[in-house]
């Protein structure tokens, strides 16, 4: 029997969805408006805005952002899962929970959630690592998010440890347990982690400000920020001032969100595919 959704909650969801969808719809609509007709209040559509904004500089910035989000997202998942898996195994092996070393690591990680050295020490560390003005500076300093490790750890703790022990008894090592037991059971969680990290890296315009010196290496979010604020304040005091109309700005925003939309679609498609079951023990592991 199909349960009917209550009218009120459905209405609330629709309203919330509209609230989120309207700015997107506005952006989509305006980006196809002819710049002059936008000011005249007329409805004339064009692809010229997209063509003008899709110049070498924007496409290069999109490529930089795609690279930092893809590589950064993937490495973040590897590090996050590795950290959480290590803590998971260390905790599960002892009846009393994490060993002292594990607790120390967890305490340090938690402390970093609250305390931060500030921008200047952060910059100094990245500089002494020789990363300043390199593409790596855009994602390496942001690879590990403590909160994500904790989320991941909580997810791993929900796996019955008897499954891990059974694999162990069959002779599987930690990596084999991960590959054959944990990964199939938590693949959707890891995909979601990838998506979150992808978006975090994608939106990280400040790394471009802090660590990048060359405009050629700027990520697209920084370029957009500059573009959207280009008519502000003393912009004419810079030498780069070229007037950009609101439809053109919206076209640039549209171009820049396409990769994120594709990433969402890709992750959604992957997570909808049927997850593999834990693999049977092989001859080698017996």
């Amino acid at each position: 029997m199909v349960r009917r959704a209550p009218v009120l909650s459905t209405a609330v969801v629709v309203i919330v969805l509209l609230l989120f969808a309207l700015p997107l719809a506005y952006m989509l609509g305006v980006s196809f408006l002819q710049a002059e007709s936008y000011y005249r209040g007329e409805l004339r559509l064009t692809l010229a805005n997209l063509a003008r904004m899709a110049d070498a500089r924007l496409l290069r910035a999109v490529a930089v952002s795609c690279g930092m989000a893809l590589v950064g997202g993937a490495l973040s998942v590897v590090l996050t899962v590795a950290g959480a898996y290590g803590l998971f195994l260390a905790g599960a092996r002892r009846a009393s929970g994490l060993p002292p070393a594990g607790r120390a690591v967890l305490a340090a990680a938690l402390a970093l959630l609250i305390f931060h050295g500030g921008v200047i020490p952060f910059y100094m560390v990245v500089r002494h690592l020789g990363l300043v003005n390199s593409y790596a500076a855009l994602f390496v300093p942001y690879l590990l998010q403590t909160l994500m490790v904790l989320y991941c750890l909580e997810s791993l703790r929900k796996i019955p440890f008897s499954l891990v022990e059974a694999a162990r008894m069959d002779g599987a090592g930690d990596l084999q347990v991960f590959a054959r037991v944990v990964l199939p059971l938590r693949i959707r969680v890891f995909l979601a982690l990838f998506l979150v990290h992808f978006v975090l890296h994608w939106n990280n315009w400040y790394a471009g400000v802090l660590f990048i010196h060359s405009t050629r290496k700027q990520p697209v979010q920084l370029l957009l920020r500059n573009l959207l604020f280009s008519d502000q304040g003393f912009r004419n005091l810079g030498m780069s001032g070229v007037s950009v109309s609101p439809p053109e700005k919206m076209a640039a925003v549209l171009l820049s969100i396409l990769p994120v939309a594709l990433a969402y679609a890709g992750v959604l498609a992957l997570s909808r595919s049927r997850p593999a079951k834990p693999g049977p023990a092989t001859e080698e592991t017996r």
Partner: protein
Amino acid sequence: MKRTALLIVSVLAVAAVAAATLLLSCGARPKPEMVTMFHWDFEVDRDGPIYRRIRDRVGVEIEPVSVPWSEWAGKLNVMIASGDVPDVFVTYGPGDPDAFDRLARDGLLLPLSGYLERYPNIAARLAGRENQRIDGEYYAVPVTLPKSDHVGMIRGDWLDRLGLPVPSTVEELRQTARAFKKELGVIPISSSPPHTAGFFWLNPLLYAFGGGWDTWLPDGSGGYLMCWVSEGNREALRFINGLYHEGLLDPEFFSNTDAEKMDRFLSGRAGIVFHNTISLYTDRLQAIDPGARIDIFEPPAGPSGQRGEWAMDGFFTAVSVNSRLPERKRDRVLQLLDFLYSREGLELLRYGVEGVHYQVREGRKVPLLPHDGEVYRRLEEVDRTASLRSFVELGDIWSPEWDRNHDLIRRAVANGEKHGRVPLFLYDKTPAERKHRKQLTDLAFQSYVTLVQSDTFDRDWQAFVDKWYAYGGREMTAERNGKPFTR
């Protein structure tokens, strides 16, 4: 056979020695020095003709350290605090005396006086700027700017349609705004806050009533009082309050961005604005409506004929050199700056390379830049190295003769020269000013927004003035005048 072999070996050996000598001699040639230069929105094109010309003339390679306009001061602070000081960088210089003094006294800025004999173009830039020295020493070279390029812009085609002249007084401005509202149904005057609640661009109205913007004013008895609490500003605010209540001033003047203000003007929802980006306004308006026209007007005169507008002291930023550079590199950096400040350097950054970016016909420079009809692309769009000009001069102080806005820009700059008022005691901040001035300025901005919308203007003005003096204004005024201030 042996002799032949010996001969071949000898020839090869001689050739090898010759080749090695040649290679070594090439290696001995001094390598171009790499110079890091910090500025916002700055880039170089290493394969471009301007960059090659500079490299050939000065023997340096330039490594840009660029950052968007909105973040430049923050990033420079981080770099300096981290010990990663660029070789050449811009600051607000003497325009921000606290920060500039600190940098100089911390020994981060190279004292320039000892080099002025060797670098005449740097010396020429500093001539007449004795008031910018700290303990008798220069630490920065000003990047020149028009005294003021702010200008009033009005829809000339609307004036034609209504048979009105370009307004020259505040009363004519009000009458014109009323006509625009009545006949065209628009809210005629728009404004925006770049950083100051919308009054910055309206500052000519303050000067028209004998007030001012962020400056001390003579109090009529040999002393000074701050403009924010002057009678001139009070009367100007009363006038603006009237514009607001008549529906002649954009009700969102204190929250608009500059882009929103421009949108209102270009879409015909406003017809009068004050700004300094004339080219942006005219270019865009021409594209939207070829029949539209922008007229510019001088700061309007007040009831007693006074006119004026806020102005800078001919500079906005200043270029400093890292004091910790090795001597050889320091010389190269100064050579580079001296070249950029020379006539040849400035012409290179303004016009580009002859035969590539322009050619001379009958004694006049003719552009070879890509163009769309009569609109030529800017040099820095064609060769990014031209953005080095921002280390020399800024803004619309100059535009090429072929720029279709050339005459408008020249008129605006002349306007600023004529009516611009540089704030009094610009470099001379008393201890109380250093302590209170920013806070009191913020208080003025907040209170002015309320005053423009106020229905009880006189009472609210008095409350503001009392608060301003109580929060440090009394101490600041007393210190400026060198005597106890009672009010």
